């Protein structure tokens, strides 16, 4: 379920709560702060915000994000950029008989999309895929 992968990271869990309640935990700033990080999140597509945690050596503790898409009680996506590394976090909620299946996928790991890397996105996805094999041959 949570094996480290270079391409994407998926965590899926069924929680005994309705989607509406989980949605609040994912989209209300004060609630997000409780389980994830301090933030200025707003549930509005295109809203740019940051997650802030305690700085540690070599990391200022800041994650730059932008709301990419949202569909209340169902889907939420935001970009996730930190220390030159960019990725996308997708949340999907599906109602089940016992509650909600919560799926989190972090994918598209690559360099921050500034001008120098534009047009290289495809190459990066491929490269990060190949990386898995390169690294497997390391040990």
């Amino acid at each position, binding site marked *: 379920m*949570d*094996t*480290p*992968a*270079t391409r994407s*990271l998926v*965590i899926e*869990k069924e*929680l005994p*709560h309705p989607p509406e*309640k*989980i949605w*609040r*935990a994912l989209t209300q700033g004060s*609630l997000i702060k*409780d*389980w*994830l990080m301090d933030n200025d999140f707003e549930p509005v597509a295109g809203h740019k915000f940051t997650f802030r945690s305690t700085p540690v050596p*070599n990391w200022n503790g800041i994650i730059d994000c932008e709301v990419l898409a949202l569909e209340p009680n169902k889907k939420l996506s935001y970009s996730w950029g930190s*220390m*030159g*590394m960019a990725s996308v976090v997708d949340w999907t909620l599906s109602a089940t008989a016992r509650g909600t299946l*919560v799926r*989190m996928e*972090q994918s598209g*790991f*690559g*360099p*921050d999309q500034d001008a*120098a*890397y534009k047009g*290289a996105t495809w*190459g990066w996805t491929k*490269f*990060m895929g*190949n*990386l898995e094999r*390169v*690294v497997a*041959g*390391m040990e």
Partner: protein
Amino acid sequence: MKTDAIFKSLADPTRRAIFERLSRNGEQTVRTLTDESGVSQPAVSKHLGVLKRAGMVRSRHRGRQTHYSAQPRALAPLVDWMKYYSRFWNDRFDKLEDLLKRMD
């Protein structure tokens, strides 16, 4: 930042291709790399210089030729990131569950 240096060294598609070729085929000379890359030898040498400064390749001289080899271990910081996030999200899921129990 280390990941930043790695990304910068691999930002250029030609450089990335050179690195991938060295990872796949093992040690090679500048001449072989030039023949396969479709760019001039000075350009290849320049790309190799950038990769070398980022610790992505290593060079050694043999006779009049310089041989280059990939250093896949240099990619370890990227792999560490994935491992880091795996732990990070599992931990946050636990916290989310705790919050949901308290919410109602």
